[in-house]
C-alpha cells in the first residue's frame, strides 16, 4: 500500500516537472492534449471497459461539450463582467458537460434497449448525425469552417498560458482518475461490472439493468463532454473535423489497447496512441493503416491490453495473499427469513404454436419445500421463468401471500421477494465469490452512486456492514474460504453454491431453484440437500425444479408433476412415487399398466 502511494507521488511529480524540465511550450501542449483525451477515454472505459457496453460515438459527446462552451463563452465574452471575472469559462465548461450528459440520455434511452453490435451501430449512427448537423447547421456551428477565436482559458482575472493551463488540466485529469477509482470500487461499480457478464443475472437480484446502463452511459457522456470543453478552450478553434467517426474509434482503441476495465488502461492507451504519431514522421499519410494494424495486433496478442500484461505479472507474485483481512469473527446474525406463500393460478403460455403451459395451478405453502418434476419439455423451466419474471404469462396470476404480485419483469419479481437461480449457471465472469454476493445485496443497500462519488462515511460503513453479511452468507453455505476466488476458478459444485448465495443475498421470501443439482456428483448433491434443508429450517419457501429424484424425495414436502404443460399429479413424495400417471409419463404407458 505504501509502495503504491510512493509510486503515485513519483509519477505525479514527474508529470508536474515536465513543463519545467523541457522548457518551451511544445511538451506542455502535448501533455494537455494527452490529459484531455485521457479524460474522455476514462469515461469510455467506465462504459465499455467496466460495464461492457461498446460505444463508437463518443466523439459526438465531446463535440457537444466543445461546441456548447465555444458558443456560450464567445457570446458572454462581450459582456465585460464575464470577461473580467472569467466566469464565462467556468459556466461554459459546466454547461458543456451538462449538455453532453443530456444528449447522452437522449441516445441512451433508445439505444440501450439493444445490446452488442446493435448498440455499437446506433452509437456510430448518432456520432454521424451529430457530425453532419455540425456541418449543415451553418448559422450556428459555422459549418465546415467551425468556430474560431474561442476565449482562452482563464481563472478569475488570471489568463492561463499553455504552461499554467497544463497544471490545471493535470489536476482535472487526476480528479477524473480518482473519480473513476471510487466509482468502480464502490458497490455501484461492482454492479456495473456484473452487467458486463450477465445482464439477466443482475436483473434476477432486483436491479433495474436498463436504468443502471442509462446512468452509466450518461456519466460516460459527461466525461466526454467535459473533455470536449477543455479541448475547445485549449485549441481556440474547433471544427467538425475534430469529431469525426474516426475520433470515436480512436477512443475505443485507446481503451482496448491500454486495457479495458482497468484503472490505468485508458490513460496508457490515450497516451501511447496520441504520442505515437508525434514520434513517427510522415505518419499521417498512413494513419489508418497504422491504427488498423494496431487494433488487430492488440486484439490478437493483448486481449487484456497493456495493463493485462502488467497485472498478470503482479498476480503471479501476490497469489498467496488470499486470506483477507477484516474477517472479524463477530457473529453476524442473518436477517430473519419470512417465507411467503406462492400461488400460481391458471397460468398459460404458448410459444408460437407450441403450448408450453396450459392452465397450470400450483400452491406452494409458506416455509415449505415444493418440488416441480416432469419429463423433459414438460414446462418446468417455463413455469420458473414466468414466476421469476423472465417470461410473461399469456394468462393467469401469480399471488404472493394472497395478493397479486403483478410480475412484469425479473427485477420486479425480485423486489417482490421472488428470486431464482439458473439451470445454466450465470455467474459474473472472473469476479470474486464475495462480489457476487455483494451484487445480490443491491436491493438492501442504502448507498448508491452519490455515496460512491463523494466517498461518504455512510457509504463506507454500509460497505462494511454488507461485507459482514455477505461473509455470513458464505459461511452458511460453507464456502467462506473461497471468498476471494474468482468465479472462473471455482469447481462446478462451488459455482452452484455461489448462484444460491447470490440469490439468498436478495433475502428472498420465495426461492426458485432451477435444477440446482445438474452436473453435481453424488457427494455434492448430499451437501446441497443439507443446504436446502437448512434454508427451510430458517423459514424459506422453496420451489425446486429437479431431475435427481433422490434429492427431490429427500427434501420435498410436496411434489407437483407436470407433463406436456399440464399438472398431472400433486401430493406428498410417497404418493407421487406410486402414482400411475406419473410412472406412465416418465416410463411410457406400458410400465404403468404392469
Amino acid at each position: 500500500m505504501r509502495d503504491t502511494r510512493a509510486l503515485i507521488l513519483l509519477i505525479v511529480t514527474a508529470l508536474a516537472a515536465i513543463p519545467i524540465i523541457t522548457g518551451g511550450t511544445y511538451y506542455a501542449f502535448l501533455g494537455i492534449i494527452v490529459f484531455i483525451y485521457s479524460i474522455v477515454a476514462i469515461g469510455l472505459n467506465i462504459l465499455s471497459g467496466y460495464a461492457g457496453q461498446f460505444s463508437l460515438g463518443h466523439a459526438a459527446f465531446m463535440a457537444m461539450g466543445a461546441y456548447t462552451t465555444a458558443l456560450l463563452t464567445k457570446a458572454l465574452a462581450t459582456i465585460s463582467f464575464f470577461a473580467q471575472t472569467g466566469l464565462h469559462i467556468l459556466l461554459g465548461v459546466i454547461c458543456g458537460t451538462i449538455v453532453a450528459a443530456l444528449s447522452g440520455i437522449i441516445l441512451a434511452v433508445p439505444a440501450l434497449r439493444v445490446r452488442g453490435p446493435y448498440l455499437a451501430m446506433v452509437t456510430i449512427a448518432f456520432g454521424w448525425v451529430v457530425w453532419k448537423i455540425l456541418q449543415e447547421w451553418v448559422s450556428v456551428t459555422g459549418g465546415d469552417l467551425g468556430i474560431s477565436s474561442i476565449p482562452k482559458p482563464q481563472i478569475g482575472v488570471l489568463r492561463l498560458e499553455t504552461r499554467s493551463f497544463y497544471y490545471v488540466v493535470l489536476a482535472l485529469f487526476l480528479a477524473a482518475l480518482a473519480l473513476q477509482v471510487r466509482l468502480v470500487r464502490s458497490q455501484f461499480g461492482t454492479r456495473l461490472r456484473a452487467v458486463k457478464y450477465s445482464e439477466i443475472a443482475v436483473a434476477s437480484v432486483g436491479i433495474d439493468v436498463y436504468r443502471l446502463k442509462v446512468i452509466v452511459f450518461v456519466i460516460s457522456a459527461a466525461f466526454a463532454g467535459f473533455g470536449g470543453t477543455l479541448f475547445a478552450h485549449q485549441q481556440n478553434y474547433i471544427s467538425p473535423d475534430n469529431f469525426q467517426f474516426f475520433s470515436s474509434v480512436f477512443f475505443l482503441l485507446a481503451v482496448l489497447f491500454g486495457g479495458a476495465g482497468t484503472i490505468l488502461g485508458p490513460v496508457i492507451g490515450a497516451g501511447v496512441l496520441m504520442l505515437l504519431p508525434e514520434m513517427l514522421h510522415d505518419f499521417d499519410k498512413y494513419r489508418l493503416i497504422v491504427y488498423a494494424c494496431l487494433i488487430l495486433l492488440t486484439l490478437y496478442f493483448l486481449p487484456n491490453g497493456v495493463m493485462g500484461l502488467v497485472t498478470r505479472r503482479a498476480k503471479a507474485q501476490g497469489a498467496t495473499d488470499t486470506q483477507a483481512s477484516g474477517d472479524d469473527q463477530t457473529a453476524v446474525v442473518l436477517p430473519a427469513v419470512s417465507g411467503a406463500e406462492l400461488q400460481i393460478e391458471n397460468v398459460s403460455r404458448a410459444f408460437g404454436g407450441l403450448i408450453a403451459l396450459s392452465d397450470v395451478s400450483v400452491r406452494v405453502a409458506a416455509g415449505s419445500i415444493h418440488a416441480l418434476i416432469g419429463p423433459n419439455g414438460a414446462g418446468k423451466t417455463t413455469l420458473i421463468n414466468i414466476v421469476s419474471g423472465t417470461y410473461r404469462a399469456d394468462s393467469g396470476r401469480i399471488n404472493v401471500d394472497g395478493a397479486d404480485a403483478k410480475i412484469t419483469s425479473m427485477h420486479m419479481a425480485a423486489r417482490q421477494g421472488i428470486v431464482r437461480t439458473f439451470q445454466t449457471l450465470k455467474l459474473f465472469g472472473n469476479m470474486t465469490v464475495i462480489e457476487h454476493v455483494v451484487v445480490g445485496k443491491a436491493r438492501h443497500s442504502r448507498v448508491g452512486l452519490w455515496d460512491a462519488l463523494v466517498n461518504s462515511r455512510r457509504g463506507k460503513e454500509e460497505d462494511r456492514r454488507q461485507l459482514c453479511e455477505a461473509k455470513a452468507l458464505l459461511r452458511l453455505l460453507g464456502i467462506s474460504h473461497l471468498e476471494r476466488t474468482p468465479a472462473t476458478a471455482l469447481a462446478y459444485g462451488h459455482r452452484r453454491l455461489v448462484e444460491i448465495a447470490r440469490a439468498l443475498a436478495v433475502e428472498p421470501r420465495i426461492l426458485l431453484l432451477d435444477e440446482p443439482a445438474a452436473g453435481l456428483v453424488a457427494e455434492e448433491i448430499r451437501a446441497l440437500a443439507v443446504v436446502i434443508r437448512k434454508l427451510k429450517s430458517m423459514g424459506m419457501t422453496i420451489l425446486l425444479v429437479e431431475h435427481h429424484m433422490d434429492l427431490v424425495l429427500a427434501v420435498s414436502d410436496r411434489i407437483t408433476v407436470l407433463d406436456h404443460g399440464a399438472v398431472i399429479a400433486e401430493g406428498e413424495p410417497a404418493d407421487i412415487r406410486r402414482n400411475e400417471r406419473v410412472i406412465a409419463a416418465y416410463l411410457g404407458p406400458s410400465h404403468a399398466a404392469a
Partner: protein
Amino acid sequence: MYFFLQIALSGIATGAIYGLIAVGYSLTFMTTKALNFALGMWVMLGGMLTYSLNVQYGIHPLIVLPVVMVALFALGLVAERFSVYPFLRAGSDVWVMSTLAVGFLMIDLAEIIWGRNPTPVPPFFGKDPVYLGQVSILPQQLLIIAAACVTFVGLDFFYRRTLPGKAFRAVSHSGDVSSLMGINTRRIEALSYAVAAALAGIAGFLVVPLTLAEPQMGTVLGLKAFAIAIIAGLAAPRGILICGLLYGAFEGLVSGYLYTGIRDIVGFTIMIVALYARPEGIFGRRQEERA
C-alpha cells in the same frame, strides 16, 4: 405528381443498392450473431475494382461483374478467417473492432493504389434516359433495379430450394443442432461472410457509375444499409429488401422536397427511434432471452 414519381423511382434504385448490402449484414448475423462492421468498405472495393477493370483496362462490364464477385468472395473468406472467427470462437465481442480495422486498412490501401481523387465511371449501357410516359429513368438505374431483383430471387431460391441453402437456414436456426445433424457449421459460417462480401461487391459494381470511384465511397452506404437492416430486423432478409427500397424512395423524396443535407440526419434519426419502438425490427420476431 411527375416530380414525385420521378424522384421516388430514382430513389428506389438507390434503395436496391442499400438492400443488397443490408442483406449481407443479415446473412452473417443469422449464422453467427456477428457481422462485418465495415461492409461499406467492401462495397468501395467492389466499386474501385470495377473502375480499374472497366475504365483502366476496358473490360466489358458483364465480364467485370463475375470477376469482382469472385475476388470479393475469396477475400471475404480470408477476412472471416482472420478477423471474425478467432474472436467468435473466444466468445468475444471485439469482432466489432477487428472488422472495422480491416475496413480502415482497405480505405488506406485504396488511397495508395488509386489515389484520393474521385473519378467518374461511365454508365454501362449509355447515358440517355429511358422514358416511361413522362417519367424518365437512367439505364444504369434500371440495371440496378433489375440486377438487385435477380440477385434476390436467386438468393431466395438458393436458401429455400437447394440443399446448401437449407443448410444455411438450419445453421441460422440452431448451430449446435445443425452440427449434430452432420452439417459443417464452420464452413457455412465462413461462407456466409464470403457471400456477404460478394453481395457488397455487386453493390459496388452497380453503384459506382452513379457515384464516383473514390476510397470513401462506401462508408456512408454501409452505415445506411445497416440502419435499414436494423429497421427491418436483422433476421428478416425479405423485410430488409422491402425496407431498402422504401428507404431509398423516402430518401429521394426528402432530398427532392426538403434538401439533401438533411437527408441522412432524418434517416439515422428514424433508425434510432425505430429501434426504441421495435428493437427486433419491423419484420423481426421478438425473441425472449433463454434463461
